[in-house]
């Protein structure tokens, strides 16, 4: 028996170890910053200040976090059913089409709170539809969902460019984007929420979709741990042979899990399209689908973990942008390196420190 099977209390497993991993990630990021001739402590200060220092900074951080919560949940739901959905990027992109169609058709007639539920449904439906073909191919033909979802990201990208350039573009304009939604097609900002904490949101696009994201976290938790469908998905995810034994229908479960996953990814567009830019633009997803994979991995596919990981990545995104502004030596690419190190230590090397912690814990408790 190795240390892997020695149980540790939750506060070490979910508190101390992730924290130490994070410290390691920042330590090595610091080395990189130092190697290119900047002061790592200044850099860290800029990063934290840029992400959390002011009301608008926090607003931007939470805006990014909102997108990552949606895509993180999407990856997590599929993962519980044993499916690795790499296609959240494309599903979110196509989901934007659903949200935009609803906003464009309703914004003249009704206020935002009437549009919103339809937009949620539209975004989810379009995202789910984009996940359906890979799901069907996996369930029926055994085509690996990792491969097909990656390919569908590319198809989504070209499809959306085609639609925006040829169908939705405003006549006479150069930019491949839809017209700007009226107030009835926009999700309002959460100024009041920030004001509760005495902060000013300023220009940050932190909006109502954050609340939708939190509701989805609760619903995903309910689905995975409190419903029969969630039970079937988890059984299939952990032990496909036990799922066969238990009579859990493979085709149905795979397809439903991927539809839910695609729907959640699609909802990410509510934040970017209806909350921030108020129009459908090319490339609005901007990698949030891929960040969702890291967020889900770090958050151990649990909604609470996903919220925390999404906020961490929000900090890295927003603080990183500020950092590269303050320290021109540190380019956007450097920020990606730092994000990579965080994923590396907190996600991929999750269990690196575990054996040492087990030994430490055993010595400390005298077992």
């Amino acid at each position, binding site marked *: *028996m190795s240390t892997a099977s*020695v149980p540790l209390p939750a506060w070490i497993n979910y508190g101390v170890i992730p924290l130490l991993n994070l410290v390691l990630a920042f330590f090595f990021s610091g080395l990189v910053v130092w190697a290119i001739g900047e002061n790592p402590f200044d850099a860290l200060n800029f990063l934290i200040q840029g992400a959390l220092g002011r009301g608008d900074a926090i607003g931007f951080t939470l805006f990014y976090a909102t997108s990552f919560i949606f895509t993180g949940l999407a990856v997590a739901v599929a993962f519980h059913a044993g499916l690795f959905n790499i296609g959240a990027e494309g599903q979110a992109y196509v989901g934007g089409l659903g949200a935009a169609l609803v906003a464009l058709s309703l914004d003249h007639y009704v206020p935002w709170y009437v549009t919103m539920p339809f937009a949620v449904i539209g975004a989810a439906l379009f995202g789910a539809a984009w996940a359906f073909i890979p799901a069907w191919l996996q369930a029926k033909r055994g085509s690996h969902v990792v491969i097909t979802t990656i390919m569908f990201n590319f198809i989504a990208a070209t499809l959306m460019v085609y639609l925006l350039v040829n169908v939705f573009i405003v006549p006479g304009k150069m930019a491949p984007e839809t017209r700007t939604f009226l107030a009835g097609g926009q999700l309002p900002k959460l100024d009041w929420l920030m004001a509760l904490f005495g902060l000013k949101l300023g220009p940050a696009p932190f909006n109502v979709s954050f609340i939708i994201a939190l509701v989805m976290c609760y619903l995903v938790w309910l689905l995975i741990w*409190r*419903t*029969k*469908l*969630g*039970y*079937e998905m*988890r*059984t299939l995810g*952990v*032990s496909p*042979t*036990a799922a*066969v*034994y*238990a*009579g*859990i*229908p493979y085709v149905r479960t795979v397809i439903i899990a991927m539809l839910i996953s695609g729907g959640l990814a699609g909802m990410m567009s509510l934040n970017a399209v209806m909350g921030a830019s108020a129009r459908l633009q090319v490339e609005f997803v901007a990698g949030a689908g891929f960040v969702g994979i890291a967020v889900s991995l770090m958050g151990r596919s649990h909604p609470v973990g996903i919220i925390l990981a999404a906020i961490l990545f929000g900090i890295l995104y927003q603080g990183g942008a500020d950092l590269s502004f303050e320290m021109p030596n540190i380019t956007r690419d450097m920020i990606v390196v730092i994000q990579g190190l965080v994923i590396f230590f907190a996600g991929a090397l999750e269990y690196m420190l575990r054996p040492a912690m087990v030994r430490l814990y*055993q010595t400390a408790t005298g*077992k």
Partner: protein
Amino acid sequence: MNLQSSANEPAIELVGIDKKFGAVHANKNINLSVGKGSIHGIIGENGAGKSTLMSILYGFYHADEGEIRIQGRPVSIRDSQAAIAAGIGMVHQHFMLVENFTVLENVMLGAEGGQLLAKGVAGARKELKRLETDYGLEVDPDALIEELPVGRQQRVEILKALYRGADILILDEPTGVLTPAEADHLFRILQVLRDQGKTIILITHKLREIMAITDTVSVMRRGEMVATRKTAETTVAELAELMVGRRVLLRVEKQEAKPGPVLLSVKNLIVKDGRGVTMVDDVSFDVRAGEIVGIAGVAGNGQSELLEALAGIRKPVSGEIFIDGKPVEAADPALLRQLGLAHIPEDRHHMGLVLKFEEYENSILGYHHDPRYGRGAMLDLDAIRRQAEEQIAKYDIRPPNAQLKTANFSGGNQQKIVVAREIERDPKMLLIGQPTRGVDIGAIEFIHRRIIEMRDTGKAVLLVSVELDEIRSLSDRILVMFAGKIVGEKPSDADEQTLGLMMAGIAA
């Protein structure tokens, strides 16, 4: 039998070996001395610490305390290389052979003797020849492992150990996969090895083997070495009692069966496995209410596929299955459960249980749509935990904690979780595969009694097991399966030899 063996100088001595895994005290101050040129048996229930002890001896684990002496000299066995250097060879329960290599290549593996193979091959071939003549271990050196029967594969494992110069041979549950005839052959080989001066340690939980082959025997219980006896001076009953710490019934007591109407009927069933090989070949039989039909056979003769086809897990190629006289339309485990068919699968780790789930989650596997466990789409966790706790109490599942991860239960208790789930549904028919594989004696007794109870309350029971003793003591009728066919039917009092020959495909 060589009764002086234990009086000889010891080949191997364990002094005060102690090993803890966290809170589990796997080996408590073990002292053991095995005489040179003897066969020493170690028996004990699952989890008694036999495997841990042997793993320490073979360098997989390191003892916290204690000393190992070989030929009187203290040695430090840090890894399996060191064990081999000290002259210890191990034949694992699950063979460590490369299936698509030849016998010769497998024997050489890890002892190739240099970068170029040619020289090593010639040497190995010569050495194999010598081992063959010295010990009567004949195997074709150029045969592919995957083409050899299991008994031969095991011989290759023994050859591998001897090739590396082993003087002390440890065999871990060596007969689990063998027919009675193959097991007898193995015992003859072991006797030859002993007579040539090798020392053999045989780990098993089969008392019969201990009596048949060993010179001395040690009994382990809960991490302790509780007794060492000369085999000639002990009895099966005494050893069994030492193992479990109380008296056990070796035969299940049961009344005469009162068979009722046919509940499960199979007609001309043909089943192929994943590779397209016909595993069940035109099989027909009936199981009546109130009887236990046992299917005897060496593992791999189609019993597993038959069971899976009946449970709806594997789709038959042709043939019909009738439940209560009505044909079963589709291979669908959920549908079959609704028809009153419960299934205790052969492989509890991959089928019967989701090891990462908590105990209560497994207590509803396959029955999670039952309205008792929640209305509509939701699960009623309180109701599930309550019934899980009732089952834990009724089946004495230990530790009694429904929220413990299933992987953390011992094999016997895991099996009880499956048995409890399937039997507590009060099914009409019960399919059982290897009900007591890897289960300790106390739990075996318990599970056997439950199965008899099911029969006595008028259920139809189909039992598949590779343990002939189990088949014989539980079944009312025995069907023998060989190469996918049912080669004959015998009453439960048929003698072992007849059944053994049928299982080997020799007599019908």
